[in-house]
């Protein structure tokens, strides 16, 4: 039998019917639903008189719209409240499990799926959200879809999908301490560009990738979509299996042994051929900071804002000029001379326990700079929040001048009240620095949790890996 890539193995396992060309009717094992992209899908089912094909495969929660201040009062914003209440009503009507607004397990859908063992190796996972690629960290074929496909999966448990091409991004070598998964993925995006992964499923491999925790692998796969790839993947290893064991929806006993035996096969065969291969050296990777309005516009912490005049491609040059104007930055500015107004530690990219630990490590015993107007820590889920509090991380953040919030998507996209005002500059652990993403006119710099925490203390970007910073000399 010919050698296969991981994505080929996952694909073949889920084909219900092979269609003409590269299309197949693909079976969907898990479907994660939230309030923003589902109301029109449920309405479509109702209008057509259709039921959910297998409601037990669906897990729903509210994350995009929820306030992060307190869960004691109801949601004040009438449109947000309507969306959240509509989800609850739809879940009730269609027999779907929902972790509602006040459920202690509520959180960002891409945090709670793995946390609950809803996401397991070998599965297909879809959600009406582009960051569904996150779940590929478990060697699951996971991808984001639009609302029409949400309806399609609810109605049929399947999707007609075109087979993705395969790309391997191999990151070899051991990175410097404090270089995180976020720095690795920003490096990958800067190499590939925002559309370099379009049409591909990216498998991340190499020593630096398998050295990452499951949380780090989720960060990596989460942002595959920012390079254009709907799917990011990491092969199963012992860390994968250790992470999923003992979670609420993970199998137990004999069934677990059978599952583990199968899961261990979820790796690319040694001789498997990829449509495209990229090799990166982790040892030279520096902390990364975005300077523009696209995730490919990346510099290093010790670098400078680039000069558009040196870009020969006209379309790119004009894009850079527009981005710098929006960001209020001059060419050649040192990244370390960029001063911040707000700090956001959160999102489906970086709001897991390991992220909060890394940020807390930096801020412990220090205080945010007086120039910082607001510094938010928004845990990814109620369970992450509880874990962090059990470890005393909330106290570290609060004593340092951070606000400790309730879980949700929050300032990643500002659908609730957590937003940037026009002209405000933010060091953010989220995934998109698009114009207006965190608030109309807001200026976003994407960074790792450690770099965001260091920026909060210094009031500007500083190298978290530098010894001077470590000894408090910033």
């Amino acid at each position, binding site marked *: 039998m010919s050698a296969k890539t991981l994505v080929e193995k996952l694909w073949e396992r889920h084909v219900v019917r092979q269609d003409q060309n590269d299309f197949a009717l693909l079976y969907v094992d898990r479907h994660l639903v939230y309030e923003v992209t589902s109301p029109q899908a449920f309405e479509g089912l109702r209008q057509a008189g259709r039921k959910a094909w297998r409601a037990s495969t669906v897990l729903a929660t509210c994350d995009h719209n929820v306030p992060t201040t307190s869960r004691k009062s109801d949601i004040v914003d009438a*449109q947000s409240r309507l969306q959240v209440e509509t989800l609850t009503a739809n879940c009730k009507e269609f027999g779907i499990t929902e972790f509602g607004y006040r459920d202690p397990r509520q959180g960002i859908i891409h945090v709670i799926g793995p946390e609950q063992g809803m996401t397991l190796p*070998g599965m297909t996972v879809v959600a009406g959200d582009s960051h569904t690629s996150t779940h590929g960290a478990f060697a699951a074929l996971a991808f984001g879809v639009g609302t029409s496909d949400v309806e399609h999966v609810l109605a*049929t448990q399947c999707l007609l999908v075109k087979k993705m091409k395969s790309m391997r991004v191999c990151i070899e070598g051991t990175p410097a301490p404090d270089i995180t998964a976020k720095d690795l993925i920003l490096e990958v995006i800067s190499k590939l560009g925002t559309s370099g992964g379009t049409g591909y499923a990216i498998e991340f491999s190499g020593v630096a990738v398998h050295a990452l925790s499951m949380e780090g692998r989720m960060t990596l796969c989460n942002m595959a979509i920012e390079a*254009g790839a709907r799917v990011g993947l990491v092969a199963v290893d012992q860390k994968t299996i250790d992470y999923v064991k003992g979670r609420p929806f993970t199998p137990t006993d004999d069934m677990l042994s*059978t599952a583990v035996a199968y899961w261990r096969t979820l790796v690319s065969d040694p001789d498997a051929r990829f449509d495209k291969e990229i090799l990166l050296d982790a040892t030279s990777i520096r902390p990364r900071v975005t300077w523009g309005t696209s995730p490919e516009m990346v510099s290093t912490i010790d670098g400078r804002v680039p000069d558009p005049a040196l870009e020969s491609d006209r379309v790119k040059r004009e*894009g850079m000029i527009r981005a710098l104007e929006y960001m209020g930055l001059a060419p050649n500015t040192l990244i370390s001379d960029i001063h911040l107004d707000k700090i956001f530690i959160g999102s489906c990219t970086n709001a897991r326990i390991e992220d909060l630990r890394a940020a807390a490590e930096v801020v412990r015993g220090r205080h945010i700079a007086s120039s910082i107007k607001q510094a938010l820590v928004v845990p990814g889920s109620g369970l992450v929040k509880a874990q962090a509090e059990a470890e005393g991380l909330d106290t570290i953040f609060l004593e340092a001048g951070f606000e400790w919030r309730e879980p949700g998507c929050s300032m990643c996209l500002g659908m609730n009240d957590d937003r940037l005002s026009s002209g405000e500059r933010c060091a953010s652990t989220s995934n998109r620095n*698009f114009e207006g993403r965190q608030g109309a006119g807001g200026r976003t710099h994407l960074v790792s949790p450690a770099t965001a925490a260091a920026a909060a203390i210094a009031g500007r970007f500083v190298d978290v890996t530098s010894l001077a910073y470590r000894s408090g000399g910033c």
Partner: protein
Amino acid sequence: MQPFSAVTSHVVPLDRSNVDTDAIIPKQFIKSIRKTGLGPYLFDEWRYLDRGSLGQDCSKRPLNAEFVLNRKSSRNAQILLARGNFGCGSSREHAVWALQDHGFRVVIAPGFADIFSSNCYKNGLLPVTLDEKAVDDLFSAIRLRDDYQLGIDLQQQCVAIPDGSKLWFSIDEFHKNCLLNGLDDIALTLQDASAIHAYELKRRQLEPWIFGMR
């Protein structure tokens, strides 16, 4: 879904690459629980000088005269021309609903984000991929003529330009068929219901834990 056949129309030249779905329809408008009525908020942050809100009457809002959609020549245009990686970012289908509600039937670009183009096909909005040189030439030609029109023929898979020449584009046969016939693909998939049941039986033997959640 409304079938798509052919469109002849003026063109709105949006000379930017990486136009993301946050820009196409900003966050406050995706709080809508309906598919309709999003047209007035299309490109809201670029199009108006104030900050809009869902449900607001946009007819009296201050327009950004610099933005291409506000030009007289853009009125009633059904074709949008843009640069590479159009529709990147969020999977929000609201972006497609807003483009359609505004009146667009076709978007031409050198490339589209995967989820966005998939959302287009589901709603009868045609994404036409042309190479960068061809798109560049179209931008140049439109700059010279305000009344520039293009004809899009899906059956023939071509874009007719005013000098009489044609640009050919490719599209997957499946998507073409769905668009031409306005097919409801859920109904199509449900024709395979017995195959889906058979698959589930087989899979239950191999991976019972997938089915044993509750």
